[in-house]
């Protein structure tokens, strides 16, 4: 079995974003998606601090401290791009105007609940940013994450044990092992990494999974 690398996961996400889409890439792993967007598609990146049409990281010395992304890193603006204040920016998010957002996650539940903002540990300083607005606001919420924790437990769970970010909001999960759609009927596996069987994936995931072509779920 050859697990997908982070860049391979990002490339798969990027390939599923169509021409003309308005997209927000969350901080962390999802930022890699920007490097893989197909050059022949016009995809408009949104940053919640107030940019549409965000372009690549500028080469020194062209960084501008007044032009940054949500991670507070220097970025650039593409022709056609615009700036706006925070209430407008979150109207775009909450108001359902973004076609896609891509977020990292600690856990996703079988019903598409997302946990990605807080470990809930007593000594952790909580920080949420725009995660909850993106989770409930974007038309499609893609999650990018490792399939398993470092200790080998599935991050796809019957019910999130970490504090949730949004209820039933995840559309699709991209991991280093598989691509899984969250559907009304359950979790539908649409792709598995080469060398891994459906049965083995289901065993590692530990929740009921559906195969395409209407085969019943396996545990």
């Amino acid at each position, binding site marked *: 079995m050859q697990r997908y690398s982070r860049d391979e996961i990002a490339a798969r996400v990027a390939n599923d974003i169509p021409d003309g889409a308005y997209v927000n890439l969350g901080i962390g792993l999802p930022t890699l998606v920007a490097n893989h967007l197909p050059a022949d598609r016009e995809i408009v990146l949104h*940053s*919640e*601090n*107030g*940019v549409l049409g965000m372009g690549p990281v500028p080469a020194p*010395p*062209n*960084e*501008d*401290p*007044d*032009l*940054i992304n949500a991670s*507070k890193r220097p970025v650039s*603006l593409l022709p056609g791009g615009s*700036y*706006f*204040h*925070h*209430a407008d*920016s*979150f109207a775009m*998010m*909450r108001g359902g105007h973004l076609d896609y957002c891509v977020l990292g996650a600690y856990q996703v539940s079988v019903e598409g609940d997302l946990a990605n903002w*807080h470990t809930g540990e007593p*000594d952790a*300083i*909580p*920080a*949420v*940013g*725009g*995660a*909850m*607005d993106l989770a*409930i*606001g974007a038309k499609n919420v893609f999650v990018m994450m490792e399939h398993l924790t470092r200790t080998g437990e599935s991050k796809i769970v019957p019910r999130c044990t970490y*504090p*949730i*970010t*949004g*209820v039933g909001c995840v559309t699709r999960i991209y991991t280093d092992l598989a691509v899984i759609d969250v559907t009304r009927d359950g979790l539908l596996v649409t792709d598995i990494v080469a060398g891994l069987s459906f049965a083995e994936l289901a065993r590692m995931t530990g929740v009921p999974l559906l195969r395409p072509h209407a085969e019943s779920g396996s545990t």
Partner: protein
Amino acid sequence: MIDKTVASAAAAVADIADGATIMLGGFGAAGMPSRLIDALIAQGAGDLTIVNNNAGNGDTGLAALIKARRVTKIICSFPRQVDSHHFDAQYRAGLLELELVPQGNLAERIRAAGAGIGAFFTPTGYRTLLAQGKETRVIDGRGHVLEYPIHADYALIGAERGDRWGNLVYRKTARNFGPIMATAARCTIAEVREIVPLGALDPECIVTPGIFVHRLVPLAGTRRATS
């Protein structure tokens, strides 16, 4: 004649009293009114409630205000950052109260205050820890949380250019919270890179109309690092 220009940052913040609620513009360092914050630190007001997206970065601006122990409560969305050490230390020591607000709720609560809205229902945060104890309602089949406006005594914001009526334009992503905070405070103080003659700002492009701005401090003799 209207002239909202104040000669110095010190004069602009002189009447801020202990216990005030102050909105600070800026997302990280972009748009943060550092000169006004420095003047506020020198002025000495304490027991402040601060509204900002973050809880200070590095050792300047809001971080310096926290370091000086002038802040007792922060209302923000994202306090924890790699360089938020002054906040982290005081929070862990129990010296600082934190009200954590999802970023869009923070923005909309500020906007609502400025727009005279009594409260609003939002789907953001529904059934999460950050909605605990709050009134909820299902509207069109979707769960919503009741959120109240955030009013402030003062808003300190940064802008690029202004005129003596207080009309403002911003620069790139330094705009962020400036335009909404300006509407939500009893007294809005803007530090601007440049003051231009009345009529020089294109009326089609003014972002904050002067009615929302009460004092204007030019950053004379200072230059921002710009490309």
